């Protein structure tokens, strides 16, 4: 009998990590969009990069339980690093991407070491403050960042020396898709690993995790750093595909926005960003085209309605609906 339970338990845990067919859907859609919406690839590339950014936020928010209103600090750091290199003759995109991740990780690690001992509202405020200070610094250091006018003179070379960035955004889209894929692979592996499991434990019951001897603080700093690197990659993507970096990449507006998008999609389910970011950005694009003056109202209303009727974001709603469907089926 115990044998049976054991093997069932083992099978359950093994199965959990395997790739399910539904997980291929976003990739199929993304590749399909390339062919179906050739006029929208510039927007598409930005959506993909923002999904990567959202994924980085979901890692700390949904899995480690760190509420951050300052993740744009890492995004912007990555963007400015890639941008700076491109403006100084080192425009190879992949190089810029790696450098961006390194710089963002550095900032993430340092700020994490300082602030991650706090909790609750304090952590929120500290992440916010770090972001604002970084933005102020970028504003002041005009010679490096171009200040409020933005970084000028970026010249991004073709990807891998072959694919030139065109006006329609085809290269940008594919490049962003590939980078997102790698980011996703990393995130997924992380989340299903013992490390990832321990993060969930930290989020749910810190005291217990301390009691069983988990090095909580270092785990948190580690995921924060990884997340920062991912956000930096997203920033580099935006910088390279738009050939622009400005102070809004370091703004708390952006930090708040990405937080809203991830919560909208559903936190802690790995795919919240994949759902929330495109839906939100498309909704915003549509609303602002239909009602350029008052689209804020419709977006705000959408958010309120989602919380009222779809707790846990869109994915939460889907999960609830699936559960209800299964219950009904069992009867």
């Amino acid at each position, binding site marked *: 009998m115990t044998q049976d339970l054991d093997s069932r338990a083992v099978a359950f845990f093994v199965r959990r990590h395997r790739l399910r067919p539904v997980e291929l859907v976003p990739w199929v859609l993304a590749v399909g969009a390339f062919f179906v919406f050739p006029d929208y690839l*510039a*927007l598409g590339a930005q959506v993909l990069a923002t999904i990567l950014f959202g994924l980085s936020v979901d890692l700390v928010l949904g899995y480690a339980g760190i509420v951050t209103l300052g993740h744009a600090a890492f995004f912007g750091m990555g963007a400015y690093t890639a941008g700076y290199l491109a403006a100084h003759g080192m425009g190879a995109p992949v190089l810029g991407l790696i450098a961006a991740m390194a710089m963002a990780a550095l900032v993430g690690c340092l700020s994490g070491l300082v602030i991650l001992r706090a909790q609750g509202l304090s952590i929120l405020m500290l992440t916010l403050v770090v972001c604002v200070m970084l933005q102020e610094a970028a504003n002041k250091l005009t010679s490096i960042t171009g200040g*409020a*006018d933005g970084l000028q003179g970026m010249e991004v070379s073709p990807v891998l020396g072959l694919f030139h960035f065109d006006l329609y*955004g085809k290269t940008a889209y594919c490049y962003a898709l590939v980078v997102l894929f790698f980011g996703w692979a990393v995130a997924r592996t992380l989340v299903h690993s013992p490390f990832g499991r321990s993060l969930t434990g930290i989020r749910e019951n810190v005291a217990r995790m301390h009691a069983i001897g988990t090095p909580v603080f270092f785990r948190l700093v580690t995921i924060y750093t990884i997340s920062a690197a991912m956000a930096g990659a997203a920033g580099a993507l935006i910088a390279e595909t738009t050939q622009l970096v*400005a102070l809004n990449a370091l703004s708390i507006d952006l930090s708040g926005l990405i937080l809203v998008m991830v919560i909208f999609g559903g936190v802690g389910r790995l795919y919240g960003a994949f759902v929330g970011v495109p839906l939100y950005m498309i909704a915003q694009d549509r609303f602002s085209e239909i009602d*350029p*003056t*008052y689209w804020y109202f419709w977006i705000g209303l959408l958010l309120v309605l989602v919380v009222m009727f779809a707790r846990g974001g869109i994915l939460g709603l889907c999960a609830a609906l699936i559960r209800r469907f299964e219950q009904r089926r069992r009867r």
Partner: protein
Amino acid sequence: MQISSRFLVALIGASLAGIGIAGAQTEIKVGVISTMSGPDAQPGDEMNKGIDLYVKTHEKELPPGVKVTMIYRDDTGANPDIAKRLATELVTRDHVNFLAGAVWSPNASAIAPVATESKTPFVDMNAAAAPITRLSPYIVRDSFTLWQVAGPIGEWAAKQGWKKGYTAVTDYPPGYDAEGGFTTSFEKGGGKVIDKVRMAFGTDDYAPFIQRIKDSKPDVAFIFVPAGKKATAVMKAWQDLGLKQAGVTLVTTQDVMLDEELPNIGQVGIGIVSSGTYSDAATRPANQAFINAWRVAYGDKAIPDFLSVQGWDGMAAIYDVIKQTGGKFDGDQAMKILTDWKDANSPRGPISINPATRDVIENIYIRRGEMVSGKLANVEFDTIPNVKDPWKEANPPK
């Protein structure tokens, strides 16, 4: 919450265009990138109103068979990445004949390469950073640069015999331009700027900076902040700290003595001298007509400012291209007409585009705040005619 009429017009326009009514209709599309939401919507709103008014009142002047479709997109603020994407979409998806607008300089700089690559003329209706017109051969600007506007007030201040000056500007590029423009001409006229301060962009309360000015005891202080509610905050701090009683004179540009904010500024604005391209109190007939049309369209309480006139004039230039070519032109032909464009009868007086720089040449007026019919107004008392952008003269292209 009613559906905006703009949406209905766009919908009807789009369906008409789709059906291809009346056979040989030429549709000219103008893509306006403006700021319509968020904390910085005030200037965008003024600019849009000016654009809309021109389109509405000049419909009959279009050649037969030509109609103009306006497409507005919201960049939500100084977001060059969004502006660039909007410009790209307007060009690749909507196939606009003109790009227009741009409240913020970073946004205009981001739109420039899109204009170049797609050969679409871009009429910059506000963004005032001096180098913008150099970023693309397809940019023409009908607004101003801060060097153009701040220079004359520096000159005027020096002429009053004031020797000690102080500059206080907001810490962002237009502020630096204004500071440079004033300082250069003030010192050329014999004065000396004894100290300067740059004020953080997000400042709500200007008291600490005004106190610094008071401490230094200059004869004249030049203050520049972005057009909008910050202007009122500066004036309130100026009044609260009693600078006038301390013997310091305030001079500024039209951004601080902003026509729209004058009702909020009230009594403290009396006597304040500023330089500007447009005051809604100007008595020239072209302005009277403009104000009348404005009041009819937007109500008696609505006040136009220099942004509105820039929108109006920018559309006038676009319409002139359409009229001169009968609605059939490509980007290069449009640019040829735009680069040489003149209007002797703009609400702000005679303006023309400088073919060498594609910047606007216009009169700069020195105005004083006075009560006119019980309301504070910028009354023009001196004119410096046909001012070119001094920054371009001093910095020829390499």
